[in-house]
């Protein structure tokens, strides 16, 4: 630094995030559950839809619905424009190189299955390896187990530690000469851990290993740039990012998708069909057999417009503050144990309370109007690692409030007393 005097430039104070204004965009948040205002803390399972999405879906269904890519009539053209417009939005939002890299699927699960069956299956030989981590959702385990069973390849699992973190050195040590695919979560759905995906993807690519990132729990909480990340495939679900259920996305690097055979056969994925020979359609239609979930795509496009219109930096900062507040409020409860204490976490907190089974906790909380998830979170290997059958999980969206988290903590304390925990 030079000794010259410098006036520090203070960035303009951003307007504080207005959570009450945000809540007004989500009609469901005004309802009562068992006589209490709904505190919806199950966003990791599925988020609620804002007015903008509901209106887009309603408008499409009322005024524009027809099948896509088929008719010359007005409604078909309007439906096609809306469906393809949603693809453009997804491509821009993920910073894909081209709209042809965006394949609509039913969700993350179908996207992973598509890659396992269309990319991995023709390439894997007996003795090849697919590398995943111990904290994956079943959707990023079972499709790989299936393709390993089909090909004789081996599923290799990188370890986690007691905090629920993935040590990148340990993962890299498992990237061997036979590793063909590396697949991992961006954010763990059971623990909230943010994985070091940038480094892991770069390491895999440097070794010529194809990479898939399961972004289902990441996209609601952070901006994703697939080109900066450098992965070959990125999978996500609409319904965890304020869109309807039944629509998701597989981003695939164009050169990879080009080399992959169609996964399912049917209408829309072909150019010509005769009984002797069928020629396949171009990307991305090659992977979209049959009439797609048009209204779902319209909803997803609206959700992206919505996310583009809000103060996302403020929203993400608010979510980080909610998580910190939840940690602080919950650890004060005697007998409560956090499951997953990674240094980088997003969006959720998993926990157990001595003497209170998570399902009983879920029922007690529901009576207080608080919705959380209880169970194994489709991550049974994670539960096995911690030697527990289930956890309670509160997962946040930017429309949640500090007050809702205080209610959560109070209700957990009530459950603890009810089931015979020590009164402290």
């Amino acid at each position, binding site marked *: 630094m030079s000794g010259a005097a410098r006036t520090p430039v203070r960035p303009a104070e951003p307007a504080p995030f207005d959570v009450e204004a945000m809540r007004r965009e989500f009609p469901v948040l005004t309802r009562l559950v068992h006589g209490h205002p709904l505190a919806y803390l199950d966003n990791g399972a599925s988020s609620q839809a804002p007015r903008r999405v509901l209106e887009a879906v309603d408008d499409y269904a009322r005024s524009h619905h027809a099948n896509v890519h088929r008719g010359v009539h007005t409604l078909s053209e309007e439906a096609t424009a809306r469906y393809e417009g949603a693809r453009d939005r997804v491509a821009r939002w993920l910073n894909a190189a081209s709209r042809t890299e965006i394949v609509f699927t039913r969700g993350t699960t179908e996207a992973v299955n598509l890659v396992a069956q269309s990319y991995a299956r023709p390439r894997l030989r007996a003795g090849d390896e697919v590398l995943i981590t111990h904290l994956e959702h079943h959707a990023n385990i079972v499709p790989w187990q299936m393709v390993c069973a089909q090909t004789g390849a081996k599923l290799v699992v990188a370890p986690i530690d007691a905090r629920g973190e993935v040590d990148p050195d340990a993962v890299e040590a498992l990237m061997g000469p036979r590793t063909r695919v590396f697949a991992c979560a961006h954010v763990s759905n059971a623990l909230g851990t943010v994985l070091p995906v940038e480094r892991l993807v770069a390491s895999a690519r440097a070794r010529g290993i194809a990479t898939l990132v399961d972004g289902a729990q990441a996209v609601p909480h952070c901006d994703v740039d697939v080109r900066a990340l450098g992965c070959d495939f990125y999978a996500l679900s609409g319904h965890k990012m304020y869109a309807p259920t039944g629509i998701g996305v597989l981003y695939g690097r164009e050169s990879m998708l080009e080399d992959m055979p169609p996964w399912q056969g049917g209408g829309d994925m072909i150019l010509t069909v005769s009984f002797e020979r069928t020629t396949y359609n171009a990307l991305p239609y090659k992977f979209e057999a049959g009439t797609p979930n048009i209204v779902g795509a319209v909803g997803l496009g609206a959700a992206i417009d919505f996310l583009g219109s809000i103060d996302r930096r403020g929203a993400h900062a608010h979510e980080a503050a909610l998580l910190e507040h939840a940690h602080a409020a919950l650890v004060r409860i005697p007998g409560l144990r956090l499951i997953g204490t990674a240094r980088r976490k997003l969006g959720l907190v998993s926990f157990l309370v001595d*003497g209170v*089974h*998570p*399902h*009983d906790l879920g*029922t*007690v909380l529901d*009576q207080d109007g608080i919705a959380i998830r*209880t*169970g*194994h979170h489709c991550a*049974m290997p994670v*539960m096995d690692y911690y030697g527990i*059958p*289930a956890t309670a999980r509160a997962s946040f969206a930017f429309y949640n409030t500090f007050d809702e988290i205080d209610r959560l903590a109070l209700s957990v304390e009530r459950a603890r007393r*009810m*089931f*015979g925990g020590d009164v402290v």
Partner: protein
Amino acid sequence: MELQDLYRDVILDHNRSPRNFGPLEGSSTDVQGSNPLCGDRLTLHLRLAGDRIEDVRFEGHGCAISTASASLMTEAIKGRTRAEALALFDRMHALLTDDAAVPDEGLGKLAALSGVREFPARVKCASLCWHTLASALQSSAPESVGAVSTE
């Protein structure tokens, strides 16, 4: 529906201090039951003497409803014949699923579970032990029965 209708005192008590909990020496039938969606697992140990359930114990882990239900069940079926226990299964099944069913006095403490049917997500918790029992008893060769699941 109030929480107290689900978690009655007798259920909280049997959850905190389950009766007949642990292994059973000299058991003639050991059957596992599981509720894969919530991870509840229990093993039912029976010692059958002819047609009679001479002794019964259970092990495993589950929520308060599933633990209390298993605990109450072991008390209710000890000393009963196979047919009596299966008849009790039918009455419990009705109690847990049929809104019109009225608990009769013959059910004794088991009637405490009648609140469960107002919580549809929890019916499987209460019925897991009974399905496990029925599977053990209905088998013609009880020693050979496999695991049961609520799914």
